[in-house]
């Protein structure tokens, strides 16, 4: 499951979607597939900030079955 937030949701034209990727795979691998799958998603940066199961992760983090991956625009909280 992939979630898009804020500006990335506007670019991707959706706030979430589901993808099937061959394992093992990293966040980077999923990013490539995201950009190929949904038309607007090609406008997303190649290396966005990402979170896996509610935690910040690097792009080389391993994906497991059922994971929730989120793509996060530059943070602006506080």
């Amino acid at each position: 499951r992939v979630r898009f937030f804020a500006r990335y949701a506007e670019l991707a034209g959706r706030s979430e979607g589901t993808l099937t990727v061959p394992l093992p795979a990293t966040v980077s691998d999923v990013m490539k597939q995201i950009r190929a799958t949904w038309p607007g998603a090609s406008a997303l940066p190649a290396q966005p900030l990402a979170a896996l199961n509610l935690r910040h992760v690097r792009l080389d983090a391993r994906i497991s079955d059922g994971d929730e991956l989120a793509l996060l625009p530059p943070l602006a909280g506080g």
Partner: protein
Amino acid sequence: MNYLTTAPLALEALLAEVSAPHCGGTCAFLGTVRDGPEDGGVTAIEYSAYDAMAEAELDRIVAETRRQWVDARIAVRHRLGLVAAEEASIAIAVATPHRADAFAACRYVIEEVKKRLPVWKKELRADGTATWVDPSGHPSMVGPQ
């Protein structure tokens, strides 16, 4: 714990939460929506979040703060939705036995929030335009509302 709210933030409530007989110093921080000259007529900010992750991240930040300052009592609220200029978007209160710890722990919380909280803001201007805010310095127009 519910750290996120769409209601206006009341610091008094947070101060009451952290107050304790053994804590002599309380440091609080309020972040407010600016409308300075360089801010180009910002009338409000619309905050949105990855709610579940923001709650989890704040839980982790508070836990880390308690590990570093073991006697610290900590309360945090982040506001979401429309926040008018000069209203607070975040309120933090930290009470400790000694004041240096209250300042240090409160500062730690806000710095980690800025670095880690999955929250975004769209600046709404008097002229009807809106901009996603990128604190690293690359605003991107999203057009008239």
